[in-house]
Every structure is written in structure tokens, then in C-alpha cells.
């Protein structure tokens, strides 16, 4: 008997049961994959750092002259050192590397990063293949990150020639790597991996420029760095803590955060929709439950019947959802970062199983509570759809006869929404979440394209173009600001000969040691100095730019860290002398992840080792855009790296903008598909419920098209309300989600909102999806016969 009733119910109420089944499956997929992704992604950087054994402190030295002293100090005096390992990398100039593709020789593009040659045998800062596995290379093979390979158009099997001093060798690209320490564009370092024997050739070459590396595991990274700086080792260039490495992945975390946000939203949508569908379908069952009660069936027998029905539905739906959630979460996690090794989302199957069980439990608990309510309801009340006929509050909705112009379809849509606010609230929230979600990557992209972003990267957004890699072939990297100034002068005169009257402003980067006598210890801080006519483009949060020889400015984080204030006196070791400076300003930008100093343009730092130099600002009168200028000059002077501001930013944020832009279409499509599916299923559910009313409308002369218009308009009103609600929510998301993400990088900036995109095109696409889905969902209106009037209770 029970089986027969269930079988009949499943067959007869096919539409409602199928819709409920689909929603349970979706909820299961969304919940399982999202919880799994959130767990994986939120610990992604830590996981990657652990896996690659990135040390607490990495120490970089110019050459190995002080190797013994540094080793002795770390071993005997280094604070809280647990263990350490040292190694050597060979510094390569970009122009010493050439590629050969199809018989044509081209130059290597390092994307402005320093290039090092190393091996894969260290126990720290390990390098893995694309699948996260250890690897070894044969003699003559070379490996690099997929980003470097992509940038240079390299494929496994391609040839690379490295000519450094007297060693000139051709390598075959073996594979692409994932390199936690040197693989992120934000780190500004690129490591090429070769075999041990090949590396020895370059290392032992007397002309080789070597970089000493010390990987130190310590329980007090800050103390270690502070005491190291106090030792006054001349060759120590910089020390990088694990947290700084982790920060270099903060832009990768933009994608990760987005995935977490999508996950949370999908869970919310799944729960809302599931609850709504359950209430809707159980209400549909009320009438039959009433009839069963009326014919004398016992409460428990009825309850058992419905609990079994919902158990069958929820079990089958959630098991299918569980199966689908594993590839779904793996696929989503894969798209988060090309730079990182993520934990395999598929490996956490237990998370998916727990989530699936949770869905089953929630649904059954909900059904149990709903069926329990029946104990208190009389048979006739159940037949009336759970209503006792008593009503204590006024009817919602509006009056048709008071609308002298409003078309009936518009009225009916609005009236439906006002009469069933809770029903439509689910849809409004779902649509609203989708609208807000779509604005986040859009605003991120637009912020990255903004002129404020350019200025935060030490670029004058109004300049004509930027140039990098101006060293001559075989010249090697510039070692001091003097080399840079000479190089800039050469480029300026070459430009003049070609008819471009340009002014060049270079920004060398030094690591200088600062202290406030009697107050703070010594600390090495990346220091930039604008050398050239254009020094006024840098902005300051407080105070003013350093102008005089004894003036300096620091980033907000440095000021805060050291407890310095504007007007304080600071000492710096420059050219072997202690120089005194007064702090004149505080700024925030992305140089060295927000921890840097700006030296006045007058101070002579030419005897200091120049760590690197920033993209040179080229100013001239031109009507061309930066990208046109870059294209033009790249053709005329192909040996130099001409670029526009966007390219410089992209280079420094690891192509995140491109990743986001690439993600926009699939994300819009995914969101559109989700809300289209929800709209379609909801609409079908409404139609099942409103068959009688639709038949009645038809009987009094309403056309199918007009009835469909009424149904579609309801969805549009819900979407319009969602869009309106999404505007302030999106602004809040900018403030509470995006600003902190950008701030992790070291600088706060205004999130750019381009209204026609954020409030026009993309919501428009989603709106079109909603209309199409509602349109498809209402096709069935045609099939409703006037005879179905009997469905009107």
C-alpha cells in the first residue's frame, strides 16, 4: 500500500518532485564543493609554504665573501635558530639569455624580474613540477615556471642559450615548475632550474655574479632580522621573512577570496532555495494529507509516508550531488592560481560526505518539523492547505481599481510580490547575491586599471611611456645609479636622434640600513629615489615629499612598525657614512609590499649597490596613448622593454588582472546559468501551484502571452529590486572585501566603480538570463487547459 501510494505520488506530481530533486542535488553540489573549496583555499598559502619548505627567514647576500662570518653568526648567535641551510644562485642578466624558436633567435623576457640560475636540490624553497611532484633534470635540460614559459612562448623541447662570462651553453626546456620562493611575479625574482653539473659550470666561472642564500628556520624571525642588521655585514642585501613571501601571493588570493565568496554565496543560495522548495512542496501535500486524515489514517502512518517520500528524494538527490561535487570542487580550485600548488580538493572526500549527510539531515529534520505540525491541524484545515481560515493581519498587496493606468500584468506581478513577500524574498536574495558577486571581479579589474593604481606602483600615470632593460647587450645589469643615469642619457639621446624629445626619470632601488638613534634597531629598507626631472608625481598621505638633501619619507607600514613620526630624525648608512635625515612625509604604495623609503632626489647614492631599478618614466609631448607609444618604440628600439602603465602593473601583480578578465566570462556564464536554472525551476514551481488561477484567467479571456507576461514581470520585479539592493551591497563589498585585499599588498586605494559596467552591462546580462529563463519556464502556460480550473482551491 505504502509503496503504491509513493509510486503514484512520484508519478502524478512529477514536476514538483523533479524540481525538488534538482534543488536537493544542486544544494548538495554547492554545499559540498564550496565547503571543501573554502577549506582548501583559505589555507592555500600556508599549505604551499609548508609544502615548499619556505624558511622563516631567507637571507640574500651579494657574493660569498662573508660566507664564513655569516655562517658562524647564524650558527652561534642567531636568535632562536632551529636550523639553517645555505646555497648559491648565479645572477643572470636578461640579455645573456636568448631563445630559439623555429630557427629565429629572440631575447628572453623576464618581465622585469631579477633572474637567477639554480638547482632543485635544496631542502628549502623547494621547486616542484606542475603536478606538485619533485623532479630531477638531465644535463642540458632547463625548467622554469609556467608563467615564464608562457611569457616567452616556450614549450618543452624548445632551446634556450645562456651566455654568462665565458660559459655559453644551450639548454632544452624540460618542464614547467611551481616555485614558491621565486615563482611569483610579485617577488620580482625568477629562478631557472638546471642540473647540478650544468649549474657547477656557471658557478665556477670566475666572472659569475653570485647570490648567497641562507634559509633560516627560527622561532623569532623579527628578532633574527633585527640582530642580523645590527651585525653590519656588508654583503647582506636583503632578508625576506616567510610572511613576506606569503604576502607576495596576496593577489593570487584575490582569486581565492573570490572563490570563497562564491562558495559562501552558493551555500546561502542553496539553503534558501531548498527551504523554499520544501515549504512549497509540503504545502502542496497538505491537501492530500488532510484527505488521508479525513478517511481515518493515523497521524504516524501519514507522517511515515511523507518522510519516506522525502528521504527517497533527498537521498538520491544528495548522493548524485556528492558525486558531482568532487569534480566540481577540483575544477574550481584549479582556476584559483597558476602560481600555487593547492591541496587536492578531491582528496577531502570526507568533507563532501559530511556536507551531503548534513543536507539529508537538514531536509529530513525540516520535513519532520513540518509533518509534526500536522498533528495539531485538523483534517479540514489540512485540506485548506494548512490554513485554519483565521487571519489576524491585513492582506498585503495593492488594489487594481486604484491604478488608473497600470497594465494588469504589471499590477498582478507587483501584487503577487506584495502578497507573498517571503516567497519572493528568496529570489530577491538569490538574484542580489549574484549581482553583487559579479561586481567584485569587475571592480577589481577596474581598480587595477586605474591611474591611482599606477601611481601606487611608483609610476606617473600621465607619462608618455615607460622603459625597462636599457642595459646594452653583454653589459650586464646596472650595479649603481651612476650606471642607470648613463644608460638613461644614452636612451634619451637615441630617442632625440629618432625625433623624440623626451625626458627620462629613473627610480633606482637600494636596500639601505636605517636606525633612529637610541630608539630603534637597524633595519634594512628598500629605498627608491627619483633621478630625473619628474619627481613630483609621487603622492603622500601626510606631510610632503622629501626635497632637500637631509629629507626622507617612509611608507605608512614602516612608520607604524618603528613608531616613527613626521619630523623625527633618522640615520642611514650611505656611501659608508652615517647620514642624518628628517622624515617629511608618509605615503602608501606597493613598493616592496608597502614597506619602503623615498629618498630625496639630491642625495648622492651612486656608491651604493643598486638592487634593481624601477620602470623608467619617459615624458614627452605626444598625442599617442601609452600603449600606442610603447608599440611604436618597441618597433624602433626592440632591445629595450617599452611598456604602458597597465603592463607594468600586470607584470607586478602576476597577471591577476588578466586572470580576472579571463574569468569574467566564465563567471558571468556560471552565475547566469545558476540564476537561470533557479528562475526556471521557481517559475515551474509557481506554475504548478497556480495552474487553477492561470486556467481561470484564460477562462475570462486573458491570452497566453499576457499570462506569461504577468509571470515574467514578477521575475523582473524581483530582479529589479535585487539590482537596487545590490548597489549599496556592492559598495559595502568594495569597502569590506576589496579594500582589505588591496591593503594586504601594502597600500590602500579607492576601489574604482565604472557604473555603466557594474550597474549596466553585467547586471543586464544577468537580467537577460532571468527573463529568458522565466520565458522558457512559462512556456507551459500554453498547455494549461481551462479544465484545470479544478486545481484552484
Amino acid at each position, binding site marked *: 500500500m505504502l509503496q503504491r501510494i509513493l509510486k503514484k505520488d512520484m508519478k502524478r506530481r512529477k514536476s514538483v518532485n523533479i524540481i525538488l530533486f534538482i534543488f536537493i542535488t544542486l544544494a548538495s553540489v554547492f554545499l559540498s564543493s564550496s565547503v571543501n573549496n573554502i577549506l582548501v583555499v583559505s589555507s592555500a598559502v600556508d599549505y604551499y609554504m609548508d609544502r615548499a619548505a619556505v624558511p622563516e627567514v631567507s637571507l640574500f647576500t651579494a657574493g660569498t665573501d662573508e660566507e664564513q662570518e655569516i655562517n658562524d653568526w647564524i650558527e652561534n648567535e642567531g636568535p632562536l635558530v632551529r636550523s639553517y641551510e645555505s646555497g648559491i644562485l648565479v645572477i643572470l642578466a636578461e640579455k645573456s639569455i636568448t631563445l630559439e624558436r623555429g630557427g629565429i633567435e629572440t631575447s628572453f623576457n623576464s618581465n622585469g624580474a631579477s633572474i637567477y640560475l639554480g638547482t632543485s636540490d635544496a631542502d628549502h624553497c623547494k621547486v616542484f613540477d606542475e603536478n606538485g611532484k619533485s623532479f630531477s633534470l638531465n644535463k642540458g635540460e632547463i625548467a622554469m615556471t609556467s608563467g615564464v614559459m608562457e611569457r616567452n612562448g616556450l614549450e618543452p623541447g624548445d632551446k634556450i642559450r645562456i651566455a654568462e662570462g665565458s660559459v655559453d651553453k644551450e639548454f632544452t626546456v624540460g618542464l614547467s615548475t611551481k616555485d614558491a620562493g621565486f615563482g611569483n611575479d610579485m617577488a620580482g625574482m625568477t629562478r631557472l632550474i638546471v642540473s647540478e653539473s650544468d649549474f657547477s659550470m656557471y658557478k665556477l666561472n670566475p666572472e659569475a655574479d653570485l647570490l648567497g642564500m641562507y634559509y633560516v628556520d627560527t622561532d623569532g624571525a623579527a628578532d633574527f632580522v633585527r640582530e642580523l642588521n645590527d651585525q653590519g655585514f656588508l654583503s647582506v642585501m636583503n632578508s625576506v621573512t616567510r610572511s613576506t613571501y606569503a604576502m607576495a601571493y596576496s593577489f593570487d588570493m584575490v582569486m581565492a577570496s573570490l572563490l570563497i565568496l562564491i562558495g559562501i554565496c552558493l551555500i546561502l543560495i542553496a539553503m534558501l532555495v531548498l527551504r523554499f522548495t520544501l515549504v512549497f512542496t509540503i504545502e502542496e501535500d497538505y491537501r492530500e494529507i488532510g484527505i488521508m486524515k479525513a478517511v481515518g489514517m493515523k497521524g504516524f502512518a501519514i507522517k511515515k509516508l511523507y518522510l519516506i517520500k522525502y528521504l527517497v528524494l533527498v537521498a538520491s538527490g544528495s548522493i548524485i550531488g556528492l558525486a558531482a561535487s568532487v569534480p566540481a570542487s577540483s575544477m574550481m580550485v584549479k582556476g584559483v592560481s597558476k602560481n600555487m600548488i593547492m591541496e587536492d580538493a578531491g582528496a577531502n572526500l570526507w568533507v563532501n560526505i559530511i556536507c551531503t549527510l548534513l543536507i539529508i539531515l537538514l531536509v529530513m529534520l525540516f520535513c519532520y518539523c513540518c509533518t509534526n505540525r500536522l498533528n495539531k491541524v485538523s483534517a479540514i484545515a489540512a485540506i485548506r492547505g494548512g490554513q485554519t481560515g483565521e487571519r489576524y493581519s491585513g492582506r498585503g498587496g495593492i488594489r487594481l481599481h486604484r491604478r488608473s493606468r497600470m497594465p494588469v500584468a504589471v499590477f498582478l506581478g507587483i*501584487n503577487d510580490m506584495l502578497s507573498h513577500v517571503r516567497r519572493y524574498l528568496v529570489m530577491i536574495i538569490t538574484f542580489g547575491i549574484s549581482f553583487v558577486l559579479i561586481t567584485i571581479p569587475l571592480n577589481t579589474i577596474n581598480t587595477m586599471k586605474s591611474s591611482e593604481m599606477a601611481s601606487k606602483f611608483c609610476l606617473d600615470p600621465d607619462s608618455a611611456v615607460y622603459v625597462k632593460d636599457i642595459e646594452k647587450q653583454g653589459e650586464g645589469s646596472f650595479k649603481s645609479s651612476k650606471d642607470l643615469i648613463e644608460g638613461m642619457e644614452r636612451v634619451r639621446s637615441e630617442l632625440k636622434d629618432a625625433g623624440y624629445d623626451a625626458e627620462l626619470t629613473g627610480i633606482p632601488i637600494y636596500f639601505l640600513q636605517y636606525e633612529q638613534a637610541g630608539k630603534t634597531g637597524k633595519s634594512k629598507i628598500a629605498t627608491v629615489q627619483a633621478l630625473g626631472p619628474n619627481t613630483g608625481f609621487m603622492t603622500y598621505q601626510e606631510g610632503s615629499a622629501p626635497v632637500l638633501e637631509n629629507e626622507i619619507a617612509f611608507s605608512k607600514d614602516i612608520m607604524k612598525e618603528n613608531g616613527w613620526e613626521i619630523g623625527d630624525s633618522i640615520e642611514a648608512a650611505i656611501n659608508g657614512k652615517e647620514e642624518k635625515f628628517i622624515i617629511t612625509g608618509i605615503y602608501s604604495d606597493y613598493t616592496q609590499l608597502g614597506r619602503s623609503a623615498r629618498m630625496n632626489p639630491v642625495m648622492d647614492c651612486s656608491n651604493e649597490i643598486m638592487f634593481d631599478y624601477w620602470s623608467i618614466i619617459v615624458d614627452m609631448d605626444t598625442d599617442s596613448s601609452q600603449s600606442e607609444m610603447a608599440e611604436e618604440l618597441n618597433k624602433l628600439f626592440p632591445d629595450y622593454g617599452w611598456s604602458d602603465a597597465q603592463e607594468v602593473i600586470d607584470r607586478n601583480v602576476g597577471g591577476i588582472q588578466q586572470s580576472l578578465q579571463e574569468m569574467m566570462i566564465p563567471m558571468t556564464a556560471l552565475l547566469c546559468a545558476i540564476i537561470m536554472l533557479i528562475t526556471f525551476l521557481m517559475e515551474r514551481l509557481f506554475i504548478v501551484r497556480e495552474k487553477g488561477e492561470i486556467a481561470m484567467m484564460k*477562462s475570462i*479571456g486573458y491570452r497566453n502571452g499576457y499570462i506569461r507576461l504577468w509571470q515574467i514581470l514578477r521575475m523582473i520585479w524581483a530582479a529589479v529590486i535585487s539590482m537596487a539592493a545590490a548597489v549599496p551591497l556592492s559598495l559595502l563589498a568594495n569597502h569590506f572585501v576589496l579594500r582589505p585585499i588591496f591593503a594586504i599588498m601594502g597600500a590602500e586605494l579607492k576601489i574604482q566603480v565604472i557604473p555603466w559596467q557594474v550597474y549596466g552591462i553585467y547586471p543586464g546580462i544577468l537580467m537577460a538570463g532571468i527573463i529568458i529563463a522565466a520565458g522558457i519556464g512559462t512556456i507551459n502556460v500554453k498547455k494549461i487547459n481551462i479544465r484545470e*480550473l479544478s486545481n*484552484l482551491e
Partner: protein
Amino acid sequence: MEALKVSNLCKTYVVNKRQNNVLRNINLTINEGEMVGVMGPSGSGKTTLLYTVSGMDGATAGKVDFLGKDLTALSSNEMSDLRLEGMGFVFQQMYMLKNLSVYDNIILPAYQSKAGKSRAGRKMINDRAGLLMQKLGISEIADNDVNEVSGGQLQRACICRSMINSPKIIFADEPTGALNKQNSIEVMEELNRINGEGTSILLVTHDMKVASKCERVLYIEDGDIREDISLGKRAGAGEDRERERKLNDWLIKLGW
């Protein structure tokens, strides 16, 4: 003058590959201002006849002429327009939209008609709805929800709705089937009054008292009109007893 002319109308349902001829070659004419009742045993095809001649359900064969148009040849939209402007319906159950007040349900078809497109038209519709409600004695329930009023009041509201576009014909399917005796009398009085104003009515009923109010009564059996009887125009309540007796005799003769 003919309001509705049905020629050779057939309606067949196929259930589980078995053909069920519900209407067989029905020929029927309803004149303007005529009130025709349809009686017959359960399953004889009364309701199907009503739905088919009103265009609410398609015919398998035959023709239905209404206002010079063949309903069987009209598109779905043309049929909707005709139902909106030219026909009124009263059902056994009082079907109304639950989200709307009684008044809004009444004006619902009118606001969709040509007159309802303009502000002035809507004002006229509101006036007419008020007048109709007043005539049918339900003015006081105008702002009520449909579940707040009695069955009789609701059926009268349904009659108001069927009348709101001044249709040429009203189709009524057991209009008193769900009402008590007093409410039934009131509803039939209203239908008689409307008919008296020139609106044709085709009414399906099981109730002899209701049918006796009609000018002509058809007896349908096995999907065919077996016989009909003309009772003449009803002049007033005084002749009801005589009309009922005449109809009763006729029905007994038919084996009712």
C-alpha cells in the same frame, strides 16, 4: 436572431487508446436573449458541451458560429479576445484570484478589455462594477478577500465578473451547485434579470427548479441532444410552480 449556432459538433477523447465519443453530432441554436438550460444524467456530456461551444475546449469536428465567427477555426488569441469581450462564464465553484479583493476580481476582465486601456475607460468600468454589485446586493463585500465572504456572495460576484464586459452570452456550469437553497434562488433571480436585459444564457444544471427558470431546456444523453422542451419566457415567480410541473413531466417521460 441567432446568438450561437452549433452544427454537427463532435468531441472525442482518447483514453488509453480507447476512443470515447463524448459529443456526437450536436446541432443547436441559441437565439439572442434566449435562456437555455441543459440537463442530463452524469457523464452525458453536459459540461463538455458547455466548454466546447464556448471555445474553452476544442472540438473534434463540427462548427460553432458565434457573432458570425466560427469558434473552431479561431486561433488561441482570437478565442481569448472573444471570451473577453463577448462571453461571460459562471462556474459551479467560485473561481477567483486569492490575492485580489472581490472588487478587483470583478473588474479583472474589464481592465484587460479595450475600454480598460484608458483612464476614462477604467473609470467607467469602476462605475459599472459598482452598479452591478449594487444590483446584486454585494456592495458591502467589495474590499473583502475572496475567502472572507459566503458562497452565495461569491457566486454573485462571479456573475458580476461575467457581466462586467456586457457579454452577448453567458455560459453557466451548475451555477447553483455549491449554494444553499436561498442563495440558489437569489442567483437564479439575477440570471433571469440579466437575461431579461437581453443577454443570452446557456446553463448546465442537474437541478430541475433551476432549469425550470429557462426558456428552453435540452436533454442530453450519451453525447447527443435527445429532446428539448420550450417553457417560454418566464414572466415572474408566480408561474414557477407550473413550469416546474411541466418540466418534471417531461423529464419523467425521458426516464430522468
